């Protein structure tokens, strides 16, 4: 029987081929947020991104929304993960969803005018959070705002899709897959099958 070492090398070779074959360069921040094997500091500023679908103003609002949904709050957030670029790219590739985004942004601006006297994009962060709060929580839902809630749901979905498929997002979850394990990973708590006395997690 061939030794484990040879098989392990074969696995590594395959992994190297797979990594090399991923010819898609990504966008500036994707490449930056996703690059292999570098621990480059996150504050390096990438070149300016030119949106494919959104206007500059719309894009700025998408960036704000993504950052409000997944903030940079001591750990990297949507900004570092390039989520707004992901959303712009996906929406540019998907005629079926473009109107919903464009209409939703317009709705949100009008909503800001109505509630706080200024369009969403012109509000300070506190006002923007206040608006999203109205749309995000079931117990704050009000009749007549269904379109806004639907838009929030859409932006949140795309933000989470973009964030948790980025390198920083997967690192934050500590996604354990796409690694190599020597044996099938079993439960590390043999003395506590009910898992009722696990150590409280560190906050």
């Amino acid at each position, binding site marked *: *029987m*061939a030794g484990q070492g040879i*098989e392990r090398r*074969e*696995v590594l070779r*395959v992994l190297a*081929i*797979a*990594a090399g*074959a*991923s010819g*898609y360069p990504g966008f500036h921040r994707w490449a930056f*947020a*996703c690059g292999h094997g570098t621990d480059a500091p996150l504050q390096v500023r990438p070149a300016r991104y030119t949106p494919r679908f959104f206007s500059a103003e719309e894009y700025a609002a998408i960036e704000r929304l993504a950052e*409000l949904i997944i*903030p940079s*709050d001591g*750990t990297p*957030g949507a900004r570092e993960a390039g989520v707004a670029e*992901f959303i712009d790219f*996906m929406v540019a*590739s*998907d005629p*079926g*969803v473009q109107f919903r985004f464009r209409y939703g942004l317009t709705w949100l601006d009008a909503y800001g005018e109505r509630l706080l006297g200024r369009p969403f994009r012109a509000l300070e962060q506190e006002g923007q*959070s206040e608006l*999203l709060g109205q749309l*995000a*929580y079931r117990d704050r839902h009000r009749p007549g705002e269904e379109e806004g809630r639907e838009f929030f749901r859409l932006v949140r979905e795309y933000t*989470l*899709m973009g964030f*948790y*498929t*980025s*390198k920083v997002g*997967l690192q*934050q*979850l*500590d*996604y*354990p*897959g*796409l*690694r*190599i*394990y*020597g*044996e*099938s*990973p*079993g*439960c*590390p*708590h043999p003395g506590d*099958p*009910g*898992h*009722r006395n696990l150590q*409280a*997690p560190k906050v």
Partner: protein
Amino acid sequence: MAPKVFDVIVVGTGAGGGMAIKTLCEAGLTVCALNSGRRLRPAKDFRNHRQPYDMTYRGFGDPRKRDRYYHIENEYSDGLWEHGITYTTAPGTSWEWPRCHAVGGKTNFWGRSAARMGEIDFKAATLDGGYDTDWPVSYVEIAPYYSRVERLIGVASTVQNRPSNPDGEYLPPMKLRCLDHILKGGCDTLGVPYLPDRLAQLTVPHEGHPPCHYCGNCTEGCDTGSFFSTPWFLLPAAEKTGRLELRTNAVARSVLVDEGGRARGVAYVDRETKQEAEVHAKAVVIAASCVESARILLNSRTRDWPNGLANSSGQVGQNLCDHLYGTTGYGYLPQLLGQPSFPDNVSASQVVWMPRWQNLGGAPREKFIRGYSIYPTGGCGEFPWYEKEIEGFGSQLKRDIKRYYPTPVSFYCQIPSLPRRTNRVEIDPEVKDAYGIPVVRVHFQWGPNELLMWEHAKRVTADVIKASGAEVWGAGKEPYTPGWSLHETGTLRMGNDPKHFVTNRFGQTHDVPNLFACDASVFLGCSDKTTTLSILAFSLRTSEYLIERLRTGAL
């Protein structure tokens, strides 16, 4: 020069075709294998080791194509699923029919659950008081073939001594994860079995194949060949004999028959050039997956066979069965909230199952006849799908998604549909596919028996979640679309009576002695077990029967 006549043509290179090809070649026969798509190059075509951020659309796929994707299709396997060979559905039928046309077919991406069927399945009709018909084979007869298949492909499990699940020859099982220990506690309380699945995934080196490295994305294709698939486990041995000619992009149109009523070859269309071609042989094995196999025979009409070849019984295309799949419940384990992430989802497979525990003692005790199984899944997956259960935004959302990461669990059922006259395929008289070949029209509805099981499975799942100290988030409202499981069976069922069955107990058609079927089309029903292991075992048996018949001149 006279055109070459092969010993055998095999249509299809999935589990059934692959096993036939290997067995026939190793017995010294010359084989021409037809596959409707191209060959795979694992390093290039299997993108399973790429992180989502290495994919153009993060693995979600091009939105412009995504609407046409089958549920199993995504950016990782884009281009390998059949969209050129279309099909239609009868009014009232929803049917999803994902087919991988690359060499190896669905074995490239299968779920790897590999349980033996047992006497409880083969004699189901007798046991439940006479619904439909027993299989024409007994477990004792097929058991040695199961053993040989298990030794060849490697199946990890344990000896479980359960009446519905004969034990086989197993590699060491995968270890139970945190979520398994918790859910097993709940199942023990309720008296529901919770056991290692029969998993055709290598936990130790086996027959020259490296063991699994538990990277996760098995269902995007394995580029180390650590679980069974035809290209990794069967075709190399066949090619080594020098007796295999594999013709790719060959879309089979019909089986050709001579004036004496014997199969003489297969007509096919080249997928790329659309040119018609023929290949000739002394015997023909069809193993194109059951609906496609039926379609080929129905499209092989001649003056002598006005209703399709080998169809004197009128049963070609009849009694299509499928597994009813659905999410019977999902929720989370509060015991694991906030725990560090743990590689508990990295086999991307069931690891465990809740094998049939209903109606084990002969006469049915439930409201339904026969039985079903459930597969629990969960753990730290690639994408936090449970985010939909957590409302809000901002730092709190970010913290919650991380806190819940090790906790989600989800259950899906594997419920056999009963054979029924109304579930069947026929040739659509008006529609042709991209290659000019008439397509099938599918008639299929879930029946009351499987819907009773579905309701039962949802109740049990909710009980298991609660008994495990876990919280229920929800359950599927409806089962998935028929066809979803990719476990179709029937259409060329085997039986001793030529008036009621298409093939005999060896998969040889009653009407055309040198025509055989080596896929799940010959199965009487789908039972609560997956199909692949049984396809391999029955194909091995049929292939050896064919070899013997050729050797003795009986063909």
